[in-house]
């Protein structure tokens, strides 16, 4: 594998021979680099073209897109929605937190009309969710309407880290107090 | 300033038309709308002009007034360091009257860009004006010409009418005559120079060399082609803008690119320069003809061409 260093605008190859990966862009059938870094050629499945990617020294910047999985912290709850500060997109931390919203109807997939935000999230909870829409001017819309999405870390009102005991309950291991949460299914 | 978006299909329709050299109103890519110009519209100025570029009495509307002041020469001012020249100060203001999206502070940045563009075109030797005639007493007093432009209407392409109105205002400019004489100071017995402005309203002088002031052609790049004198929609979908100013002899006086969506290739820039060299001298000629007509109408007292008739074009 060749590891030459390239700078933005460097010609890397043509789309006839390679497909464009991270850190590259295509113009008129030619692949160019967009970041400064090492050029990697990744062999793809047989029958498809190898991928050219450029990996920089810094992690590439994380930008929320529809469909990506995020980790965030609940900052505010409201009768109709919970506000989340998006901290990670995929495995990449954001340079500055983005603003997200979980609307009442996006909390879970079933019995939507019985959802109460207060019984699902509390400020300070860390949750995993998916971006479902670019949303309005300020915020992205998030959804936890899948088993693997929901609260992954929460503290009880006394400040102890709680452990999930069912899909909608968490328990404080010291005081044994049970609180309601929309928990994520542990992997 | 930000444009309200137009639909993808309209964008496609407009840009395909430009590819075929046939625009919405049937104009070719390198065709201007009608320029209407009147001079002497503001009595408080030493010279003023109003220019409107558009169809059937509506369009982009720019008013330019020139005021003159006498300034004391001070060493250290980089512009008048030489001591034997005057200076021109340009400022462009965009009135919220012009268009909805100029309300508030959004227009300030654009106005600033226009001010600097105008400065670049006319406040230097490239304007063709003899700056030495603005000097009253070397290293003592000089004229400062304040060129203030006010945008009153916006219908795409502000820069070209801005330069058009500025040139017309300079053609209208009449500076009061100044007499310089030597005065003997009673106390020191040292002779020094003093000047006096003549009160006589007929003792006025025109500015030499205003004919050489350049006009502007602004090219908007849409797709792979470019248009001049664009409409609002064309401006909204254009990806880059190049303004070229040239004088009656076809000499390039300034070039400036604006808008940051895309760049342009050097060959395209060369093409644009070549076209403006052909286009602008003829635009200057047509403006000269219009100004002459205006002067004729002014001397003919039976048919006064006032700004009022200009405004009520229809």
């Amino acid at each position, binding site marked *: 594998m060749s590891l030459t260093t390239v700078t933005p605008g460097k010609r890397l190859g043509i789309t006839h021979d390679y497909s464009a990966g991270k850190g590259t862009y295509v113009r008129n059938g030619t692949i160019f680099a967009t970041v400064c870094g090492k050029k990697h050629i990744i062999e793809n499945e047989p029958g498809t073209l190898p991928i050219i990617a450029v990996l920089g020294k810094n992690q590439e910047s994380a930008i929320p897109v529809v469909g990506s999985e995020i980790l965030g912290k609940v900052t505010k709850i409201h009768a109709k929605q919970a506000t989340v500060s998006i901290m990670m997109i995929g495995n990449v931390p954001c340079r500055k937190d983005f603003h997200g919203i979980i609307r009442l109807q996006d909390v879970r997939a079933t019995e939507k009309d019985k959802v109460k935000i207060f019984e699902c999230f509390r400020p300070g909870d860390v949750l995993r969710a998916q971006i479902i829409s670019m949303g309005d001017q300020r915020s992205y819309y998030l959804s936890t309407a899948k088993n693997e999405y929901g609260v992954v870390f929460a503290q009880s009102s006394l400040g102890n880290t709680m452990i999930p005991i069912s899909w909608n309950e968490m328990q404080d291991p010291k005081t044994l107090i049970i609180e309601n949460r929309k928990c994520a299914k542990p992997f | 300033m930000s444009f309200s978006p137009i639909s993808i299909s309209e964008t496609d329709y407009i840009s395909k038309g430009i590819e075929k050299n046939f625009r919405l109103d049937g104009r070719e890519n390198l065709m201007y709308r009608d320029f209407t110009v009147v001079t002497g519209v503001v009595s408080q100025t030493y010279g003023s002009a109003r220019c409107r570029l558009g169809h*059937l009495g509506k369009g982009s509307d720019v008013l330019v007034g020139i005021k003159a002041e006498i300034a004391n020469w001070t060493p250290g001012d980089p512009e008048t360091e030489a001591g034997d020249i005057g200076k021109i100060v340009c400022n462009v203001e965009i009135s919220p009257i012009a268009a909805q999206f100029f309300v508030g502070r959004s227009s300030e940045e654009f106005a600033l860009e226009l001010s600097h563009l105008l400065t670049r075109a006319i406040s230097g030797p490239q304007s063709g004006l003899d700056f030495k005639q603005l000097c009253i007493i070397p290293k003592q007093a000089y004229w400062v010409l304040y060129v203030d432009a006010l945008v009153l209407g916006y219908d795409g392409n502000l820069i070209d009418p801005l330069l058009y109105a500025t040139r017309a205002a300079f053609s209208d400019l009449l500076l009061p005559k100044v007499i310089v004489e030597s005065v003997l100071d009673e106390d020191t017995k040292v002779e020094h120079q003093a000047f006096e402005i003549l009160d006589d309203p007929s003792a006025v002088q025109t500015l030499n060399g205003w004919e050489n002031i350049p006009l502007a052609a602004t090219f908007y790049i849409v797709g792979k082609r470019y248009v001049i004198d664009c409409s609002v929609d064309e401006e909204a979908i254009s990806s880059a803008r190049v303004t070229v100013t040239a004088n009656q002899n076809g000499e390039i006086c300034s070039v400036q690119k604006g808008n940051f969506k895309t760049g342009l290739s050097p060959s395209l820039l060369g093409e644009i320069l070549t076209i403006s060299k052909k286009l602008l001298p003829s635009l200057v000629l047509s403006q000269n003809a219009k100004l002459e007509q205006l002067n004729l109408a002014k001397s003919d007292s039976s048919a006064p061409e006032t700004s009022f008739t200009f405004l009520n074009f229809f």
Partner: protein
Amino acid sequence: MSELDNGNALSFSTIVTPSTLITQDAAFMKGHGTFVEKEKIYSSVSGTVDRINKLISVKSLKQRFVGEIGDTIVGRVTKLSQKRWMVDINSRQDAVLLLSSVNLPGGVQRRKSESDELQMRKFFKEGDLVFAEVQSLFGDGALSLHTRSVEYGKLRNGVMIKVNPLLVVRSRSHLHSLPCQVDVVLGVNGYIFIGKKVEKDKLEDISELLEMYSDTNDEIDELTRSNIARVYNSILILDRMLCRINDTTINCAFELGLPYQTSQLTNSEIADEIAVQVRIKIAST
């Protein structure tokens, strides 16, 4: 304040200015453009007095569009919000187009799902042109639109021009196919869309529904393009010369303009001439 009414009937051509006393007769009712003080009716705008039975209203000569139920309008989408699009219709407030009042691809009877709500941009985006009808009025006076008819919906293959809304008069049909193979959609709100002619039989084709939110234009040949430009300039002339705008006048101006080049039509003298001729023709019919 001057008094106009001396017990005689007001003529239609009476032009009043704000605060003109229209009538002292308490039998009359106040309508739009008037106010009542001490049982007298005064005008609140400048315009012409209009009387229907006992109802007195003043119609302004230059006002923003005021919608009524059943008006067909052309609008531009300005904003997306919860289950609705906001549409600029040249009125004092943006109209509302509810997600539930549009036909979605996949059959008229299709149920709206939540996924539709998240992908509303797939149907209408900011900047898109909509041909719609006023369905109802909200309490705050905002108009609610609908596009539940085959001829309504997204507009493409052409351009929009803005004119004085008072020049477009309400009539039975606002979609006109001109003889020059150009469709004109006259929105009574003063927005007029000019586009390539849509084949009538194609409209009723169900498969066309899949394309109804398409953003790509059809191939437009040079003749059509030139005709669209001629119609564009004709409407520009009619608007600037304050002629009524309907299919007859547009056609008339179009034909009168044929001897000239398209770009010459915006020349003030030619435009003047055409407008005069159009006026004569209308008066003679």
